[in-house]
């Protein structure tokens, strides 16, 4: 470098994050004709969270077989490499502006990149002990489930001898089985809500298979121990999720794992001025997954939390293709109609649709377990039913999809009735 300000390089599509969504987005952009597609990945290895998810169950939709996270990540990265995607690993995006200038701390030094379009694919973070405010001492031995997964699966660290898991998210369930394999006794999984937040199949094959107790409507009310966790106190909670006095009991353990939710990682999105949804924690997007900032797209766990990596990739392919179209001037920001969440629906995506668009794919989650129910997507002005489907059972843990075949012309509401 000759001066103090590095020269700007120009790219068609820059994807931030090289996990299941970002790699797919890069592929989607290339397949839509973008010439110069660059993936920036903070880690030295592509694949993101897939690298530590060594269990199987990935690829059922994308590759029609059940493979593990590392296999899925390597295959996707190989596909992207073969199809001309370029990668910058070990590089961190420090800043993103609304006019798509990226300040990057790369292995080669500080660099400036200008992108015709940007795809946000930074994934998510885990909620921590501090965020759920568990009282007690502050000893070693309290881990988020994903941090424990990284230590056990990638760093060969024995994290403890006896564990309690708070929260029934999928990573917590997967880790219950993983710790059992490593000879660490799992004393129980405790879930605040009256239902599990992870997938049914994981309850079956990770807990029931090994006789690990699952207690719903319960929580950890105290952590005890000076240098290392010595025990936790668990208690039942009432309908208002408050601990029931007198129901406390102490469980001896040296390790507490937290699987209490994931939060989209949108620090960069905020810097770029992207409008975020208070419900999903991710960007507000339209039917081509464009955010409120023209030319900036979002997909995967940074947009909303997915339960299956294949769905994050599926969204990535779409966002990448849209980014390629924007980069060549084929896609403009325009007026939209709104899609809102009605009865029993926690959220639906996209929140905006360009009028006249047919074949829109909606993603939605319900607020609570529902049986024998019917989901409808209805026009707010005309009352016209755009989509209607019966379900035997819907769970908050399962992301659902609905395709609106007809052209959308008005504001719509997604609702679910038992």
């Amino acid at each position, binding site marked *: 470098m000759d001066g103090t300000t590095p020269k700007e390089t120009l790219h068609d599509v820059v994807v931030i994050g090289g996990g299941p969504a970002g790699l797919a987005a890069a592929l989607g952009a290339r397949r839509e004709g973008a010439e110069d597609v660059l993936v920036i990945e903070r880690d030295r290895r592509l694949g993101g969270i897939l*690298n530590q998810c*060594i*269990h*199987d169950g990935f690829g059922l939709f994308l590759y029609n077989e*059940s*493979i*593990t996270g*590392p*296999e899925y990540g*390597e295959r996707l990265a190989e596909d992207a490499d073969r199809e001309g995607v370029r990668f910058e690993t070990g590089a961190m995006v420090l800043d993103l502006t609304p006019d798509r200038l990226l300040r990057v701390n790369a292995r080669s030094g500080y660099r400036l990149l200008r992108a015709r379009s940007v795809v946000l694919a930074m994934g998510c973070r885990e909620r921590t002990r501090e965020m759920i405010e568990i009282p007690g001492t502050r000893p070693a031995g309290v881990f988020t489930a994903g941090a424990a997964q990284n230590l056990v*699966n*990638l*760093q*060969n660290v024995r994290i403890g001898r006896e564990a309690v898991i708070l929260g029934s998210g999928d990573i917590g369930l997967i880790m219950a089985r*993983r710790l059992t*394999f*490593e000879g660490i006794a799992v004393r129980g999984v405790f879930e605040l809500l009256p239902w599990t937040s992870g997938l*049914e*199949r994981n309850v*079956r*094959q990770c807990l*029931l*298979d090994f*006789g690990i107790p699952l207690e719903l409507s319960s929580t950890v009310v105290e952590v005890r121990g000076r240098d290392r966790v010595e025990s936790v106190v668990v208690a039942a909670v009432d309908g208002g999720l408050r601990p029931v006095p007198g129901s406390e009991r102490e469980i001896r353990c040296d390790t507490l794992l937290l699987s209490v939710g994931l939060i989209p990682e949108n620090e960069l999105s905020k810097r770029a001025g992207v409008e975020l949804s208070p419900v999903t924690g991710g960007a507000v997007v339209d039917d081509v997954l464009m955010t409120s900032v023209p030319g900036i797209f979002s997909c995967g766990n940074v947009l909303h939390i997915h339960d*299956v990596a294949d769905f994050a990739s599926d969204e990535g392919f779409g966002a990448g293709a849209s980014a390629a179209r924007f980069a060549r001037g084929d896609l403009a920001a325009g007026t939209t109609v709104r899609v809102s969440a009605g009865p029993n629906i926690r959220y639906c995506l996209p929140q905006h649709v360009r009028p006249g668009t047919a074949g829109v794919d909606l993603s939605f989650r319900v607020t609570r377990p529902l049986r024998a129910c019917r989901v409808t997507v209805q026009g707010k002005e005309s009352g016209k039913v755009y989509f209607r489907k019966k379900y*035997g*059972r819907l769970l908050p843990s*399962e992301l659902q999809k609905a395709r609106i075949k007809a052209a959308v012309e008005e504001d719509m509401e997604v609702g679910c009735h038992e």
Partner: protein
Amino acid sequence: MSERPSVDRLTCILCPVGCELEVRRTDRGLDVQGHQCEKGIGFATEEVLYPKRNLATSVPVKGSETRLVSVRLSDRVPREMIFPILREIAVLRPAVPVRRGQVLIANVLGTGVDVIATRTVD
């Protein structure tokens, strides 16, 4: 899981629909209810009579304690084989380079299933 109730309630894990199945043992065999397609019967039968599982773990490569290669089985095995197979895998120290899909133990414990690497370590 030593004792089982006479009615098994299962969630079919073959596809995302996740049918809730009820399986009863009768004199004439198993009675399966709640499936929306024929695959559900096969799943329920296998799950109740001889459940099969895959497993995943990771082992250090030869000469290192911190560089790991993750492994799985090439196919599912009867559930009771999980811990015996884990003991076989625990002593593995594969030499680098390891290729994704490489067989690290062929026909482990006579199950007809291989232990394979799930990542590439150069």
